């Protein structure tokens, strides 16, 4: 019964999306251009290297966090554990360093843990398919709870961890960080490298094509000998690892561990994926589209800040804009055209 619903939705997504994706990318670029133009006209100081740097910096964090969400969306899943793993990594890293681990070892450990939790999440949620998002939520709760218990044992500050952040980590994510003497925070370079590498993997490797094959049609993918379970699990572990990396990079940005740092990423990663034009039902879109979505979202926020809107007002405006933006390119066909 459930699978029938899923396949019928995938069929409808497939029919509406191949053209939709290209359209969404051109519309995305047009939207980005409009927003930049509006910013240049309305907000003094919008066109400055300062502002470009801050937009790219914030976009880089969101972009890295959205890697996993995009991959999951491509096979029709959603990963709700992202904010919890970001928050968990953000407090686990400093507490591991306080415990005496050298920073690189601690970071490696956190990334591995993130990937492991992600893999567990994927393996557990595979059978659930349509309900996978709730499984990822449960795994996220469990993971962040465990990390918080670990970090607050013997400390009276639950949820907040104080530790000296190494200078180089601070440099990677700070607004005034430099990359080989250039005034670009290295996290932006990291994001660019990840985006390019991911784009290559998605289009040129068997694994990358498998993701699209599964998102497009499960049956066809199975006939090709693609293990749906393997792809599903790997995607989720990539998501866990990327969330852990984002959480650690955010530590360099904020300077202190705080478990709530990941909270805004629950809905913004989904919004970035959706605005970019990746279908939440799978099969169409890609990380390139999400990069565009992230940039649109960040430039829009920066424009709204420049116009003097408070945070709640920004949130409301972004919410108001999602439906019309998605309506332009991702309307589903009427039920009578789906039969």
């Amino acid at each position, binding site marked *: *019964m*459930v699978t*029938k*619903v*899923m396949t*019928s*939705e995938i069929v409808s997504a497939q029919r509406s999306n191949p053209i939709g994706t290209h359209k969404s990318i051109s519309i995305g670029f047009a939207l980005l251009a409009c927003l930049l133009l509006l910013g240049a006209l309305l907000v003094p100081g919008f066109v400055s290297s300062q502002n470009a740097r801050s937009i790219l910096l914030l976009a880089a964090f969101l972009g890295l966090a959205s890697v996993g969400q995009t991959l999951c969306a491509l096979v029709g899943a959603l990963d709700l554990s992202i904010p919890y793993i970001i928050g968990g990594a953000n407090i686990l890293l400093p507490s591991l360093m306080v415990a005496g681990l050298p920073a690189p070892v601690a970071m490696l450990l956190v990334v591995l843990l993130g990937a492991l939790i992600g893999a567990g999440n994927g393996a*557990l949620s595979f*059978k*659930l*398919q*349509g*309900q996978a*998002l*709730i*499984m990822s*939520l*449960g*795994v*996220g*709760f*469990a*993971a*962040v*709870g*465990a990390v*918080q*218990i670990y970090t*607050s044992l013997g400390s009276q500050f*639950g949820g907040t961890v104080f530790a000296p952040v190494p200078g180089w980590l601070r440099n990677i994510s700070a607004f005034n960080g430099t990359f080989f003497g250039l005034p670009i925070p290295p996290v932006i370079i990291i994001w660019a490298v990840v985006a390019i590498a991911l784009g290559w993997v998605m289009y040129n490797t068997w694994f990358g094509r498998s993701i699209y094959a599964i998102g497009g049609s499960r049956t066809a993918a199975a006939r090709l000998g693609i293990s749906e379970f393997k792809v599903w699990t790997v995607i989720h572990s990539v998501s866990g690892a990327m969330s852990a990396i984002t959480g650690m990079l955010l530590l360099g940005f904020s300077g202190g561990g705080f478990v709530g740092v990941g909270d805004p990423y629950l*809905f913004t990663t*989904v*919004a970035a994926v*959706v605005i970019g034009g990746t279908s*939440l*039902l799978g099969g169409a879109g890609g990380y390139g589209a999400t990069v565009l979505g992230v940039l649109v979202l960040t430039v829009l926020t920066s424009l709204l800040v420049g116009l003097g809107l*408070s*945070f*709640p*007002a*920004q*949130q*409301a*405006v*972004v*919410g*108001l804009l*999602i*439906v019309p933006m*998605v*309506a332009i390119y*991702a*309307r*589903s*066909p*009427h*039920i*009578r055209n*789906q*039969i």
Partner: protein
Amino acid sequence: MSGNAIRQVTQDRSLFVPAALFLVLLVAVAIRGPSLFTTNGLAGAILVASPLILTALAITPIVMAGRGAVDLSVGPLMGFINVTVITWLVGNGITNPVVVICWAVVLGAAFQLLQALIIIYVRVAPIIVTLSGFLVLSGVNLMVMSRPGGVAPDWMMSWGAGTSVMSPVLALLIVAYALWVVIRRTMFYRNLCMTGADERMAYTSGVQVDLVRIIAHVIGGVFAGLAALSYTALISSGDPTQGSTYTLQAVTALVLGGASLSGGRGGALGSTLGAINMFMISYVLSTFNFGTVSGFVTQMAFGLILVGSLLVNVFVISRRSAA
């Protein structure tokens, strides 16, 4: 009602897990904190648990309608009703119970009607529409009321005392169940189940799926209004931020109650059991002394119980579809 409920549990396998969990938790409560079974304990429990029960009920018909329509906006909607009652109504001296109750119910229904119309006529995926509703309302709530404050109407103050089992909050719950029992007997309910299970089959069989979806949302909105009233009674004031957390909790309760997020399966009984189970889990955990980490233990336990109950559900359901 209770005989009916027992028959439902024995027939519907998706209720096995929540019902079993409920019994286990009942035993755990009896051992760890039997004071819950006193008049005061029960009254307090009803007061604390009813916003979550009603929020879970609010998303039940919407999820049952299928298409992956998890209503993410329900928490902020409840918060929106809460802050507007406190700021716009009580703030302007309007405290008439009839007006306040009508305001809550009509506002909830109207917002859900709007979302349903967007989902159907703009034809954007429900989860995107409700995500946008979540963001808009969370923002608007903070604009209406920037920080928790204000006072509930005088007549509602006594609701929050939680000293008597037969309280107006219990009446809200009873009204909600009465409404659900009536709905279950209608043609609409059968159409709802059919639409959720297979929308195209329902459409070809002549079910007006658009109308079903609109009604499901409006009913959800009415329940959201009742949830907002019980929440306002619980905190006796306005709070623009807490509503949002109810979204994830309500979805969790729904799934713990055995409903499928793909639609077609679920019901008031399951959602209620799920919500009560969540309340009892935190109640039992609060009887242990974990010191500063108790909040984290609760969160981890929630996560693990959610994971465990989903896994058991997988086996129960896969056996059913094999049979």
